[in-house]
C-alpha cells in the first residue's frame, strides 16, 4: 500500500533535483524550468496531504501555486528577453556585476572546446559564398 510518506519522499527528491539544477546551471531558461520543477514537488506534497485528510483544502492551495507559477513565468520570460537584448547571452553570469560587494567575481578559467568545422573545399553549401573569390583574370578566362 502506498502511504502518505511515499508521496512526501518522492516530492522531496523532486524538489531537491530542481534545487540542484537551479543552483548549478547557468542558462536562465533551464534555471527557470528547474524552479518550476520545485513548484511541482511542493504541489505533490499539498495534494497528498489533501488526500490524507480527506478534504480539498490542499488542492485549493495547489490552484494558487499554479496561479503564482503562471505569474512567475510571465515575468521571468519578459526579464530574459530584456537581459538577452542587453547582454546578448542567456548566461546568468553575464550579470554577476550585481553580486554582493566584497565577493570576488567568478572567472571561467577553463577554455571551452571549440569545434573546428571542416568545410568541403570543392563544394560550397547552397546559399553561401565560396571562400575562394575568383580574381578578375580568372573571371576573364572563364
Amino acid at each position, binding site marked *: 500500500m502506498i502511504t502518505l510518506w511515499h508521496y512526501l519522499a*518522492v516530492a*522531496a527528491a523532486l524538489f531537491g533535483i530542481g534545487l540542484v539544477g537551479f543552483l548549478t546551471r547557468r*542558462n536562465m531558461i*533551464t534555471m527557470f524550468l528547474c524552479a518550476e520543477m520545485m513548484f511541482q514537488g511542493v504541489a505533490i506534497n499539498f495534494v497528498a496531504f*489533501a488526500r490524507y485528510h480527506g478534504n480539498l483544502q490542499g488542492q485549493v492551495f495547489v490552484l494558487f501555486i499554479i496561479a503564482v507559477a503562471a505569474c512567475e513565468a510571465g515575468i521571468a520570460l519578459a526579464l530574459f528577453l530584456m537581459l538577452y537584448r542587453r547582454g546578448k*547571452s*542567456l548566461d546568468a553570469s553575464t550579470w554577476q556585476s550585481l553580486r554582493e560587494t566584497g565577493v570576488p567575481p567568478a572567472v571561467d578559467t577553463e*577554455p571551452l572546446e571549440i569545434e573546428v568545422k571542416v568545410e568541403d573545399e570543392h563544394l560550397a553549401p547552397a546559399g553561401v559564398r565560396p571562400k575562394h573569390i575568383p580574381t578578375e583574370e580568372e573571371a576573364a578566362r572563364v
Partner: protein
Amino acid sequence: MNLFALTPMQESAGQIALAAVLAIAGFGFLLPQPRGRRVAPGIAALIAAAGVFVAWLYSTFGQPMPDIIGTVLFCFFSVGALGFGSVLVAQVNPGRGAIAFAFVILSTCGLFLLLAAPFLMAATIIIYAGAIIVTFLFVLMLSHAGGPSDENNRSREPWLGSLAGFAFVGLVLFSLYLSHGGPDSASAAESLKTTQRLPAQVLTADERNTLLAAVEKLDTVETQLAGDNVPSANKNRVAEDFEGIHDQIGTVVGSTTLSRDGSVLTRLEKVPMRPGEKLSPLRTDQQAKTVIRDTLEIRKLNEEAFKDLSNNLLDDKTKKSLPTVKAEYHKLREELVLLAGVGQLPARNVGNLGYILYADHLLAVELAGTLLLVATIGAIAIAQRKGAVA
C-alpha cells in the same frame, strides 16, 4: 565495537546519507563542464542512488502490497518524474531540457490523478503545455546555434551545488523517518500503520458498513411509522426493530443507556481511567476531532430518538407526537450518512473545489487575480523596447 550492531535510526540515516552521496557524485559527474563530463560513471552513480533510495523507502515505509495496480502506477510515475527531472538538470541542450520538463509535468499529473485530483491534473497539463511551448520559442529564438557556449556548457560549482541540494533532501527524508514513528517503534509503528494509509483511516470498513446497514434498515422500518399512530398490534414488532437499530448504531458510536463506549471512541480517544476524568484524544488532528464531535452528537440523537419512540409506543404521558419522532429519525439518518462518509474526498471534484474556493478563500482568489493582472502589466513594462520604432 561491532560495526554491524546499528540501531534502526543509525541504519536509516546511513542509507539516506549513502543515497545522498551517490546522487551528489552522479550530478557532479553529469553536470556540463568545459572539459567534457563523465557520463557513464555519473549515470551509474545516479542509478545506484535511486536503488538505495528505493530500498530505504521500502524498508522504512514499505508494506505488503495489496493494491498492485496503484503501487505499479505510483512507481511508474514517480520514476518518470525523478528520471526526467535529472535529465532536465543534466542536459546541455536547453531544448531537450524543455522536452524532459514536459515529461516531468506529465508524470506529476499522473501522481495527481492517483491522489484523486483530476481537476488539478487537467489544469496543470493545460497551463504547462502553454508554458513549455513558450519556453521552446524562447530557446529557439535566443540560443546560439551550434558550438559550445558559456551558458550551456559550464556549470556553477557542480559539486558544491549538488552537495547543497542533496544535503537538504537527506535532512527532509530523515525528518520524514523521524515523524513516521520514531527510532524505536517496532510495536508503535504497527499501530500507526493504519493511520498512515491514504486516505487516513478514521472509520474502519466494518464501522462504515455497520452505519450504512443501520441507515438502510432505518429506511425500511420507517414505513411502519406512517400515519399518526402505530396500530397496537404492531407495537411490539416496531419496538423490537427500532431497538435493533439503536443497538447497531450503539456499537459504533457508543450508548449511554448501555453505558459503553462505541468502537470509534475507543479507537480515537483514550478511555478515562476514573469517572469524570477528562478524555484526552489519542489522535489530535482536525479530522479525528471532527469525527469525535460528530460521534458524540449522533450518540445523543440516537438515545433521544429511541427514548421518544418508546414513550410514544408505551403511551407515556409526556409522549411526543409521531411526526416529531419521525423528524428526529430523519435527522439521525442524515448525520449517520455524513459520519459514514467521513475521510472520503467528494466525488464531484470540480464542483466542490469551486465551492471551497469561493466560499472559504474568496479573498485569496481576488488577490491571485490581482497578482496575475500586475504580472501581466509588469511583463509588458519589462519587455517593451525603449525608443523602438513603431
